[in-house]
């Protein structure tokens, strides 16, 4: 299963609206997990445990706390904010959000919006499939069985950098296991078998 589950947070005072939205989406799409929050303060706590992709929010929650909201939004630039509209809101509130949908919209419109956002963020990762020179250096050593620490020493870089190269190699090739990466390296003639 390479489809990683995406976390969607719904910030909305009404439990019925939360249940309604999350259940209608979950019935049609299985790649999403839902979390319910009542205000924006709890986001930073949740973000520490779960990687939040999208937040659906009732704009009434932020209309009197706009400055605070913008601060939170800037703190987590990777999160996409969608307003849930069930009444009229001033446009200066809505422009702080990335997108909106109306409570009278069909659920398929909402799902389309969500799917598109999640697809875009994944495809950006795979944009350039060619490995950089440094990534190839790391891959060669990985395929020969060296540990992160040994690779860091050999290439004179930090372990953190090795791990970040490793992650990029996996994202670009779509191969996550070590034996799989070895096959990749051999068939692409990056290493030869002795």
């Amino acid at each position, binding site marked *: *299963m390479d489809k990683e589950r995406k976390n969607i947070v719904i910030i909305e005072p009404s439990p019925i609206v939360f249940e309604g939205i999350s259940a209608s989406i979950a*019935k049609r799409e299985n790649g999403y997990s839902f979390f319910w929050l009542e205000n924006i303060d709890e986001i930073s706590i949740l973000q520490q445990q779960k990687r939040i992709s999208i937040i659906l929010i009732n704009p009434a929650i932020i209309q009197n706390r706009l400055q605070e909201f913008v601060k939170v939004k800037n703190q987590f630039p990777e999160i996409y904010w969608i307003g849930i509209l069930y009444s009229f809101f001033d446009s200066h509130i809505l422009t702080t959000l990335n997108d909106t949908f109306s409570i009278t919209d069909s659920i398929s419109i909402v799902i389309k919006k969500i799917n598109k956002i999640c697809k875009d963020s994944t495809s950006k990762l795979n944009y350039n499939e060619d490995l950089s020179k440094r990534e190839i250096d790391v891959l060669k050593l990985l395929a020969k069985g060296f540990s992160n620490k040994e690779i860091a020493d050999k290439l004179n870089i930090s372990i953190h950098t090795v791990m970040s190269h490793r992650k990029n190699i996996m994202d670009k090739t*779509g191969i996550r296991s070590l034996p799989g990466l*070895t096959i990749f390296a051999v*068939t692409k003639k990056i290493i030869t078998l002795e």
Partner: protein
Amino acid sequence: MYQTKKTYITPTSKMLDLINDNHSLLLLLQHFNIDFAVSNATVKELCSKNNVSLNVFLLVGNLYNDFYPEKVESFKVEEVKSLLTFLKNSHAFYIEDKYPELNFYLQKIKDGLSPDDFKLIEKFFNDYYSEVLDHFKYEDEIVFPYFCSLINNSSIPTTAISVEEYRNHHTDIETKLTDLKNLFLKHISIKNELSAKRKFLNSLFELEFDLTIHSIIEEKILIPLVEKIESERNG
């Protein structure tokens, strides 16, 4: 992936219509030991005739039709038996049917690859397969008996399972399967043998589809049930 239409299965759905909409449901029937000659039966009739829990059938069937359960209610003891039958039969299917088939097509594409490349891929496949066998053995010999003893309310066996370890097993099996698929779809080109390669990939997709459902059942249904029973006992 095989489905052409998304149908939510209800007790009154006609099985024949469901199969026509999504023929991978044949595999669902096989895993429940139900014959394919379903005639005009509704899901409810079919389940009662074959002694399969209707609730379990609906839950698993809807997973095959790509409906993910929002909440899983607790099952009764007899119902859990249906669930375990399903899981055990799936294991048998993977071992007796799916992996030999994959191996058969893998040998067919041998000539399209350099000997070194083939050797590596074959080793990857064999290592992966023995890992899968170990995992099934662990489930058949430790997890399922542990679970049976819990629901039968008999004394707690000495070998408790580690939920965390159990989850890691799954992730590993799924990662390598995806790797195998990506190697062939993104990186390894094979001279000729297109037909064998397609059959190999088809088979991989079918296995991946079924294994995904298998994992969802174990992780989202079986494990929470175990944890619930455990906490009720301890509390």
